[in-house]
């Protein structure tokens, strides 16, 4: 897992909130510590250190590490007495919140997040008063972030158990160190929200015919390059097709859109004389290039090594090479069994086969997309913002979030509103039935949550003087116009 240069952030970012009078400082939630342990590795007294497989920050004194791990162990053990099947998930304290997760038997991951706080300076040189906002962060959001950490580790390394089998504790700690050292730097706890709970996939809207063309392309490539086991197809960082199973795609999608794609700028947008502009190979102009593996096929020194990923296969897992190949805005991921060694010849064959077709397809999609946009009318700034999520296919759509980058995900609404969305989501999670919740926020905004079958829709409306009935009508209208091809049971 590689980290972009911009993405280092550990301490809370302070934001001046009030311009008048005394300066008040607000601190966003931040990561205090993150550790992984297995109680069965050091059951006897004096051997506690053996339990700890990874600890961040690493410069914490050994005894403190042991104390913290021991505390977590004790809490989990203690709470188990109340409900043996559902161990504790989080511990709320005034200053921070701890999240526990047991992804594999006896392996525990713990994440400690410092609560957001406001620092109020006092007169007369007294130390500033600190006000912890312990209710501002949501268990669902950070619980999901913790699970995502594990999923990402597993995608690139397989399970903890696999490393144990291959090389014991020593190998596992090495792998954990290597992976989490970098990964934790990319966690941006201050900008985690409802979307992390969903962990959804944004799908590219596409007409049926173009979609079928892509199907045809994928099938043809898989037929002529029989090594390819699975293919995924994305456009504009949005998914169109996945041959992988849903859960694997979910985490791969996360990796592609928050890490791999943002690291590669678009050379096809570069000027004519830019060194980034792709070369014209023979008479056949195409814009295809490898995002993983060799940067330049013509380079005699080029290495044909690709990242390996692990996906689920029935009761076990499957190790695959991940080839990501991109032409303009279209990206195709080809997954090939890791037992096969990939050669220059194969890469050249893939490049010459896929490059021209993918280039053509990318311009087809772009054209079709523009036609559809023209039909649906000019882009008017809508009077509302929404998040949509479908549990069945993990489809998510948000007009609240700006483009996600490796470093930070920006929202266009106030954090208070995001918190309300998160709260509504928690309410929905408690019951199975379809529900609708309408909230009038302090700031004249209306927030509407709608849950229907497996789908959830959250709308934020800015209509100061509207009453409940009008808001309800408005949302109905939105559903009819904006989501007309999605069923809502009424």
């Amino acid at each position, binding site marked *: 897992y590689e980290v972009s240069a911009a993405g280092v952030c550990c301490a809370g970012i302070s934001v001046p909130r009030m311009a008048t009078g005394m300066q008040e400082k607000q601190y966003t939630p931040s990561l205090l510590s993150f550790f992984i342990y297995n109680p069965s590795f050091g059951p006897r007294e004096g051997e506690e250190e053996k339990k700890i497989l990874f600890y961040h920050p690493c410069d914490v004194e050994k005894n403190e590490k042991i104390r913290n791990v021991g505390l977590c162990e004790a809490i989990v053990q203690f709470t188990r007495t109340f409900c043996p099947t559902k161990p504790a998930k989080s511990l709320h304290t005034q200053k921070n919140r701890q999240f526990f997760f047991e992804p594999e038997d006896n392996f525990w991951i713990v994440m400690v997040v410092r609560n957001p706080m406001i620092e109020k300076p006092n007169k007369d040189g007294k130390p500033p008063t600190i006000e912890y906002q312990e209710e501002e962060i949501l268990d669902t959001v950070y619980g999901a972030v913790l699970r995502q950490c594990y999923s990402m580790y597993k995608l690139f390394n397989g399970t903890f158990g696999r490393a144990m089998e291959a090389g014991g504790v020593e190998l596992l700690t090495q792998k954990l160190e290597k992976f989490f050292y970098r990964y934790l730097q990319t966690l941006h706890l201050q900008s985690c929200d409802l979307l992390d709970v969903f962990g959804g996939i944004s*799908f590219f809207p*596409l007409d*049926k*015919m173009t*979609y*079928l*063309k892509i*199907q*045809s392309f994928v*099938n*043809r490539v*898989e*037929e*002529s390059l*029989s090594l390819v086991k699975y293919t995924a197809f994305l456009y504009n960082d949005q998914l169109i*097709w*996945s*041959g992988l*199973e*849903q859960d694997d*795609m979910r985490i791969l999608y996360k990796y592609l859109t928050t890490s791999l794609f943002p690291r590669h700028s678009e050379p096809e947008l570069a000027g004519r004389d830019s060194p980034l502009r792709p070369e014209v190979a023979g008479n056949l102009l195409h814009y295809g290039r490898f995002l993983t593996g060799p940067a330049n096929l013509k380079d005699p020194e080029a290495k044909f090594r690709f990242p390996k990923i692990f996906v689920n296969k029935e009761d076990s897992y499957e190790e695959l090479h991940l080839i990501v190949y991109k032409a303009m805005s279209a990206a195709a991921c080809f997954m090939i069994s890791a037992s096969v060694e990939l050669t220059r010849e194969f890469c050249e064959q893939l490049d010459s086969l896929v490059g021209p077709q993918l280039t053509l397809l990318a311009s087809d999609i772009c054209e079709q997309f523009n036609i559809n946009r023209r039909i649906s009318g000019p882009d008017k700034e809508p009077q509302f913002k929404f998040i949509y999520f479908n*549990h*069945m*296919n993990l*489809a998510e759509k948000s007009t609240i979030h700006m483009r996600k980058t490796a470093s930070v995900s920006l929202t266009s609404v106030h954090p208070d509103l995001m918190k309300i969305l998160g709260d509504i989501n928690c309410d929905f999670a408690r019951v*199975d039935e379809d529900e609708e919740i309408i909230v009038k926020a302090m700031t004249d905004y209306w927030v509407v949550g709608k849950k229907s*079958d*497996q789908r959830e829709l959250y709308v934020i409306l800015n209509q100061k003087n509207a009453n409940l009935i009008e808001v309800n009508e408005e949302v109905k209208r939105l559903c009819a116009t904006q989501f007309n*091809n999605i*069923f809502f*049971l009424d």
Partner: protein
Amino acid sequence: MSDEHYLELCDNPVQFENASSVNNVFFDEANKQVFAVRSGGATGVVVKGPDDKNSVAFRMDDKGEVKCIKFSIGNKILAVQRTSKAVMFCQMNLQCVVLEVSCLCFVFRSLQTKNASVLGFCWTNWNEIVFITDQGIEFYQVFPDKRSVKLLKSQSINVNWYQYCPETAVILLSTTVQGNVLQPFAFRSGTMSKMSKFEIELPVVPKPAKLSLSERDIAMATIYGQLYVMYLKHHSRTANSPSAEVVLYHLPREGACKKSHVLKLNTTGKFALNIVDNLVVVHHQSSQTSLIFDIRLREPDCAVNTHQPVLPARSIHPYRIPLSGPTVVPSQPAVPCQLYSSSWSVFQPDIIISASEGYLWYLQVKLPPTVNLLQDKGKLMDFLLRRRDCKMVILSVCSQILEGGEKGSLPVVATVFDKLNQVYKEYLEAEQTYTLAMESGPSRGSAAQKRPVRTQAVIDQSDMYTHVLSAFTERKGVSHKFIIAVLMEYIRSLNQFQITVQHYLYELVIKTLVQHNLFYMLHQFLQYHVLSDSKPLVRATPQPRLSTANDEIVEVLLSKQQVLGALRFIRSVGGHDNVSARKFLDAAQQTGDQMLFYTVFRFFQQRNQRLRGNPAFNPGEHCEEHVVHFKQLFGEQALMKPATV
């Protein structure tokens, strides 16, 4: 190696008494009748047509050697020519009372063409006849009752020879000294119209000028509904043409005749031409083989109007003269027939006559052997789609390319599907235009619309499903990846031609995906509405409205008796807590499979236990009859009892 003979003689030839010193044989191209005239007609004239209706036998007085004998259309009037100056008419219902009108006819014409000799005559209607003399062409109406003829039109012109195309009623006259200026005339109910003349380019211009274009080298036929004059251009050492070719001149009803196609024969020698199923067949005598050309098939590496043979040269399928027949003794074995015999006469469009053996055959194209001779499947489809009896062959080609499963066959599959659907779409559009025109009522001014003819080349979704796809998806040893790829390719092609996809194709995709537990793929297809337009399916089900695509899939699976597949599916989407148990139990009971019923029943009992802590069904679920059925099959004790705590 399988049979490669793609041409054959028909099984039921017209048999007649073979030509001999006492028996003269004539063939009339217009009525396709063979006349066997024994002893000048005195001992009988036997007429055999393509079917028994056209077969007659009669006697007439021997008044000299018959030069030509033909019935008018519908066997109404018989015309017999015995001398170069006279033709006599007689009417069949008069029991062959001979009506000599020839004198009258030529007395009438004698002022202008005193010394004209009759080259021949053609009936263009039941009572209209055209005489071609060396000095012109004369068009008459015959009144047998009045025993008179009336001149309708005539034209003076020096004629070397003529050709007649009965299908279009066009007569072609060879004029000028070299004979290469051809003058066509068209006839239609009492009118004769002169079409524009045209000149055939001769390979060598002889000096001094002499007749250089033989009637043997010219034939007329309709190909794809258009009239063509075919010129067999022999190779000539002086004119720098290494091999012979056939030059086609398109002869439109109106407008000038144009040289339109050149068929390269790539050899020299004696040739004969036939037209079968809109293919130009060129027989080559010395090699005893035939070539076929399709003028609609474009050659990528040639100029647009130059054609190479579609297939390698092959001989006509060996033919054995059958045992049964009037002239054959039953104990005699079948005799192999000598093909490409010098005694063969070839007539347009598809007739081969062996006068010495007394047979008339229709030449036929056999499509199955072409499949293995034409490797390029796209070209093969283009070829097959234009043939008359193509349907089963096309379907077998489809099955064959799916069976092969060779690498890189998907693009071929796609090409083939696109070609089929192109034709299918054209038919659907024609049908729709027709229906619209009928609905809006017969509008004045526009000619009455003809209902479009559905040819065998229209391969619709039901054909593909029944003969190709259904069996293909069932076949063992085919990877499901390939099956899905093929089905999606077909759906893509249908969409590309904006043809509404039939629900059973979607069902096939759904079934295949479910069988391989590929639920996520299924979801993705639904998401992009690739499988969602199955309206008839939704309407066919008794429920008022199916709310989600999931319900639809369950309905499909249940209707296909895939009860476990449906259960697995609904569980995969987490909907099994809310589905109606009754629906599944009904379906399971209908299959008659007791173990299946048991499994489904237990599944829902366990669900009830999990949801309500009791395995029994709620009264609202209306499963009482299923409980009874279960008890009958497996006994009371097999029912799950509520867990006692």
